[in-house]
């Protein structure tokens, strides 16, 4: 999934990779392609993890893991950092999700469990801020239920904010006409994918 997402991130893009699985996308960006990574705690031009022993507690990513700064990178305060996001300056944000609805609603911050201690962080700002929001998630839950749903049952992070979903089975665009399949993994056809998803899917457009 990470490699497939990396293919869709063009040269020159400003990109925020969410905490967890989305950070893996960075490992698949070819070194000759200049992509500028934003981390909402206040860095542009974020580089890979430092070598062991080279960690600096004052240089971390949004997941509070040690990172490095590339040449040309810079630091800024939180209001500027979220201004970049909310102001639509960041091209692509990649996030995980519990559920995505057919109209692009995103649920990824709260399990909905009544005794859970809520924590939202930057999820809601990232969801509505970037020009394109890519979601990276397993197609189905462990119980085999599709995570692409008609309406989210988990608490929402943002309304109508998701552009495209990358799963272990397919790449699907959220469009005004509905869910349009971009790619399906080998050995799976559209009918079967539609059955697993439980929602009507539009066939890929000719390229």
């Amino acid at each position, binding site marked *: 999934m990470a490699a497939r997402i990396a293919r869709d991130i063009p040269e020159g893009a400003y990109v925020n990779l969410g905490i967890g699985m989305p950070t893996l996308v960075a490992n698949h960006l070819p070194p000759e392609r200049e992509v500028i990574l934003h981390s909402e705690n*206040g860095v542009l031009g974020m580089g890979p993890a430092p070598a062991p022993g080279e960690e600096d507690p004052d240089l971390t990513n949004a997941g509070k893991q040690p990172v490095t700064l590339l040449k040309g990178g810079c630091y800024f305060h939180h209001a500027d950092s979220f201004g970049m996001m*909310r102001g639509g300056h960041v091209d692509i944000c990649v996030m995980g999700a519990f559920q995505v609805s057919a109209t692009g609603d995103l649920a990824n911050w709260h399990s909905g469990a009544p005794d859970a201690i809520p924590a*939202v*962080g930057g999820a809601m700002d990232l969801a509505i801020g970037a020009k394109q929001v890519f979601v990276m998630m397993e197609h189905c839950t462990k119980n085999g239920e599709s995570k692409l749903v008609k309406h989210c049952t988990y608490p929402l992070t943002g*309304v109508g904010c998701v552009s495209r979903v990358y799963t272990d089975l397919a790449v699907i665009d959220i469009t005004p006409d509905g869910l349009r399949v971009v790619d399906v993994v080998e050995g799976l056809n559209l009918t079967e994918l539609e059955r697993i998803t439980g929602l009507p899917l539009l066939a890929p457009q000719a390229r």
Partner: protein
Amino acid sequence: MIDKRVANLEAAVAGIKDGSTVMIGGFGVAGLPNELIDALIAQGARDLTVVNNNAGNGYTGLAALLQAGQVRKIICSFPRQVDSYVFDELYRSGRIELELVPQGNLAERIRAAGAGIGAFFSPTGYGTILAEGRETRNINGRNYVLEYPIHADVALVKARAADRWGNLVYRKTARNFGPIMATAARCTVAQVDEIVELGELDPESIITPGIFVQRVVQVKTRVETAGGGKQ
């Protein structure tokens, strides 16, 4: 002569009253002014409202302030962490109030306070449970939620260096909330690794102009960096 330097940590937190709203800089432990927090614990002000991105890690710093029972309410975006033991226990037993704010709204509410803005409309959180019951508006086809500024009595921030006028420069991503919190509090206290002579900080590189800072205290922190150097 303007001299915002104070002699020690005790003087840095002197006069903080019970019931104050205290902003504390930092994102996780990066930029967290641990020594000022320890001084606030010793100073003993109670019934505090604390504004920070998180709600403490482990048993030191902000977590220690919570454990000391001095905090009535916390305003933050991400309280639950793998090592937020103290907050989790207080929250589950109903001994601390939580106002959960999306991180960008938290930053902008702090910035708005410092900039004299009465309120603003943010798209973040629209349609979610965090915006339930709140005033909303559709502006040019997009939906927004009304957000109010967060003012503070005191801000405790950590910076790399200061001069006696209170000008500050930061270090890497430890900058995070420091510059905006400094603007939003009536009394901003900065703990710094180093106090330099006036004129030594490059005027083009000063991040927080001294007008936003009331007290500066030098604290030698022992942070091991690349190559084991002290910073």
